[in-house]
C-alpha cells in the first residue's frame, strides 16, 4: 500500500520535475542534469511486449556485483577516465534484478547447477547439471533428466549455440546441452555414464546445438592423440572429431578458420587444449570472446525463425580463483565488448540478459579517492581536487593496501611454515608491484584456490519482456522469463 501511494505521489512529482529543477540551486550540476535526462527517458519508455525471436544469455562466470564494479572502473580507467563515472553496456539496460544463487544442497553454489537453473527453470544439486532434485553427485544411476531451454527452442525450429572461453564441456556451456551427475566428466565417465563432450556431439547430431565455440580440444580425441591445439585425453580412445566430420558440422580451430567458416552450416570451434587464454595472454591466432560472439550471431541469424545463444566469459571466474584481479577485470572488459558487439547486431526482437552464475569472495577497501586504480593502491581522498591525493591510505599497521582484496585464496598473508603452522604479516606494497598483471591481491584465509560466495549477483536485461525482471529473484526465474518471452508471448499473440 505504501509503495503504491509512494509511486503515485512520485508520478505527480515527476510531471513537474523540469519546473522543479529550474528552481533548485543544484540545477546546474552535471550530475543533476544527467539524472534529469535519465528520468525523462524512463518516463517516456514503454515495455517491450512483443514475442522474442532471439534470446542471448550473457554469463560472466563469477562476476558478482563487486567484480562488475571492478570491471567498470578498470575499463573506464583504461579509457582515460577516473573510472567511477564509466558505465558498462549492461549498466545502462533499463531492467535489472538481484539474483539468489544457492543450490539445492549448497549455500555457496558452483557453476554447474546455477547454469542448469538458468536453462531448466529449477534449482539443482551441487556439482550436477540438469538433473532433478533427487540427483546424487557422481552417481549416474540417479540421473533424472530435466528438459532444456535449448531443446524447446530447437523443437520450435530455432537455432541454438553457445560461446565459452573455457572448454566447451565446462559447466556453464554444458548446461545448455547436457545432463550429468558429475560436472567433471568432461571426457571420461564411469561405465554406463555418458561424458559431457560425447553429449555435445549427441546434441549436434540431434540438431539441437548448431554452434559450439570454446576450448577443450583434449576432450574430443583419444589419450595421446595429437589434434589441432592440443592432445586428446579420452581414455576410451574415441575420436569425436571424426564423428563430427560425419555430421556435416564444420570444425574450426583458430581465428582464421573461424572467420572462414560457412555461416549457414553448423560449426564447432575448439581453440585450445583445455581453457582458452586469458584475454591478457591471448595470442592473435586465438579468437577473442567478441570474435566468437560475432561469429555465433552471424551463424545463428541465418535461421529466420530465431535463436538462443549463451555466451560465457568463464575465465573471469578462473582469474578470481587464482586471486588475480587484473586478469579477471581484463576478461570482464572483453565480456563487455562482446555485449556491445551483440547489441549492434540485433534489434528489438532480441531479449538480451546479462548476469553471473555466482559471486566470489572479492572485496573492495576504503576510503579511496576518485580515480584510485582499481588494481592499485587505495589512494587518499583529496581535500582540494576531485582526483585522489596520490598518497596511499595507510592501515593500522602503517602499511598501504590495495583497493581489491580477497577473503581467502593463494594471496593469503598467512604463509605455511616449516612446522605446518600458518603465520605472516602484510608486506610493504608499492604501486608498481600491485599494478603488475601477475600480482595476487592480499587475502586473509589461506587456501589453494579462492572460493565462490553465496552472495546475490546482479542481472540486467533489455528487449522483449525484460521488464519481468525486478526485485530479488531466484536464479531459475531466468529460464521462466526467457520461456515466456519466446513462447508465452507468442501464444498470446496468436
Amino acid at each position, binding site marked *: 500500500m505504501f509503495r503504491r501511494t509512494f509511486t503515485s505521489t512520485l508520478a505527480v512529482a515527476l510531471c513537474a520535475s523540469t519546473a522543479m529543477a529550474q528552481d533548485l540551486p543544484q540545477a546546474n550540476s552535471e550530475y543533476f542534469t544527467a539524472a534529469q535526462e535519465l528520468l525523462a527517458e524512463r518516463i517516456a519508455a514503454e515495455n517491450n511486449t512483443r514475442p522474442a525471436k532471439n534470446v542471448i544469455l550473457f554469463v560472466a562466470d563469477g562476476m558478482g556485483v563487486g567484480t562488475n564494479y571492478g570491471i567498470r572502473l578498470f575499463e573506464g580507467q583504461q579509457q582515460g577516465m577516473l573510472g567511477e563515472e564509466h558505465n558498462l553496456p549492461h549498466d545502462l539496460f533499463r531492467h535489472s534484478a538481484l539474483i539468489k544463487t544457492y543450490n539445492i544442497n549448497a549455500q555457496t553454489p558452483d557453476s554447474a547447477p546455477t547454469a542448469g537453473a538458468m536453462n531448466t527453470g529449477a534449482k539443482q544439486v551441487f556439482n550436477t547439471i540438469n538433473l532433478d532434485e533427487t540427483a546424487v553427485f557422481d552417481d549416474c544411476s540417479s540421473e533424472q533428466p530435466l528438459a532444456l531451454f535449448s531443446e524447446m527452442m530447437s523443437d520450435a525450429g530455432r537455432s541454438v549455440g553457445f560461446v565459452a572461453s573455457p572448454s566447451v564441456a565446462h559447466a556453464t556451456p554444458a548446461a545448455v546441452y547436457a545432463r550429468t551427475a558429475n560436472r567433471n566428466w568432461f571426457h571420461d565417465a564411469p561405465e554406463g555414464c555418458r561424458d559431457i563432450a560425447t553429449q555435445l556431439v549427441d546434441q549436434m547430431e540431434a540438431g539441437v546445438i548448431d554452434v559450439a565455440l570454446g576450448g577443450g580440444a583434449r576432450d574430443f580425441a583419444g589419450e595421446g592423440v595429437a589434434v589441432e591445439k592440443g592432445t586428446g585425453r579420452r581414455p576410451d580412445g574415441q575420436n569425436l572429431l571424426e564423428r563430427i566430420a560425419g555430421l556435416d558440422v564444420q570444425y574450426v580451430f583458430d581465428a582464421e578458420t573461424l572467420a572462414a567458416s560457412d555461416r549457414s552450416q553448423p560449426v564447432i570451434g575448439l581453440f585450445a587444449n583445455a*581453457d582458452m587464454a586469458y584475454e591478457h595472454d591471448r595470442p592473435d591466432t586465438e579468437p577473442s570472446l567478441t570474435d566468437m560472439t560475432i561469429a555465433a550471431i552471424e551463424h545463428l541469424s541465418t535461421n529466420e525463425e530465431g535463436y538462443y545463444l549463451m555466451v560465457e566469459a568463464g575465465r573471469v571466474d578462473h582469474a578470481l*580463483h587464482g586471486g588475480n584481479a587484473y586478469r579477471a577485470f581484463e576478461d570482464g572488459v572483453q565480456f563487455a565488448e562482446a555485449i556491445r558487439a551483440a547489441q549492434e547486431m540485433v534489434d528489438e526482437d532480441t531479449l538480451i540478459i546479462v548476469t553471473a552464475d555466482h559471486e566470489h569472495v572479492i572485496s573492495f577497501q576504503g576510503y579511496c579517492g576518485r580515480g584510485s586504480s582499481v588494481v592499485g593502491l587505495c589512494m587518499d581522498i583529496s581535500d582540494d581536487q576531485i582526483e585522489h591525493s596520490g598518497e596511499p591510505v595507510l592501515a593500522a599497521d602503517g602499511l598501504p593496501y590495495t583497493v581489491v582484496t580477497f577473503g581467502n585464496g*593463494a594471496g593469503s598473508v598467512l604463509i605455511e611454515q616449516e612446522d605446518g603452522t600458518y603465520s605472516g604479516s602484510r608486506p610493504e606494497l608499492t604501486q608498481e608491484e600491485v599494478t603488475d598483471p601477475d600480482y595476487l591481491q592480499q587475502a586473509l584465509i589461506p587456501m589453494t584456490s*579462492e572460493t565462490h560466495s553465496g552472495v546475490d549477483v546482479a542481472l540486467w536485461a533489455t528487449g522483449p519482456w525484460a521488464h519481468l525482471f525486478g526485485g530479488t529473484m531466484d536464479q531459475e526465474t531466468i529460464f521462466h522469463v526467457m520461456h515466456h518471452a519466446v513462447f508465452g508471448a507468442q501464444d498470446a499473440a496468436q
Partner: protein
Amino acid sequence: MNRRGFLATASGAVLAAPFLTRTTLAAEPRVRLRELYNNDMSFTEFATENEGIRVAIEGFMAPPLKADSSFYVLTNRPMAVCPFCSDAAEWPNDILAVYAQRVVNVIPFNVKIITRGTLSLGTYTDPELGFVSRVRLMDAVQERA
C-alpha cells in the same frame, strides 16, 4: 654477508665455482618467468640468447610431483588449484621445469622464489617422471625472493 649472498655462495661450492662473489652473481641475468615466453608460447629473445647460460628466474614452486625429489616446476603465478577449472589437471603453458642440484626443501606454492641454473631449451621428456618440458633450468639452486 646477507642470507642471499650466503646461500648463493654455498650453492656455488657445489657448482664447482667456489669463488663466485656477489659481484659475479649480480651480473647473472635475472628475469621473471614470464619473460621466457611470448603470448604465442614461442621463446623470447632473452630465452634464446641465454640458452646454455646460468640465469636467475623469479617464480613460484608448484607443489612437487613426488616427495624427496630434486625436480619441481616453477610457475609464473602461484599454482592455485581450482577445483572448478577445466584445466585443473593441466599445467599452465608458461612453466619452467627445474632440475635442482639437491633434493628440494619444499617452499610453499605462494612464496616467490628465485631459481638459479643453466637455461636449457627444447622439448624433453623426463625418463623417470614422463614429464614433458619445453624449457628447463639445470643444476639449479633456489631461495626465497
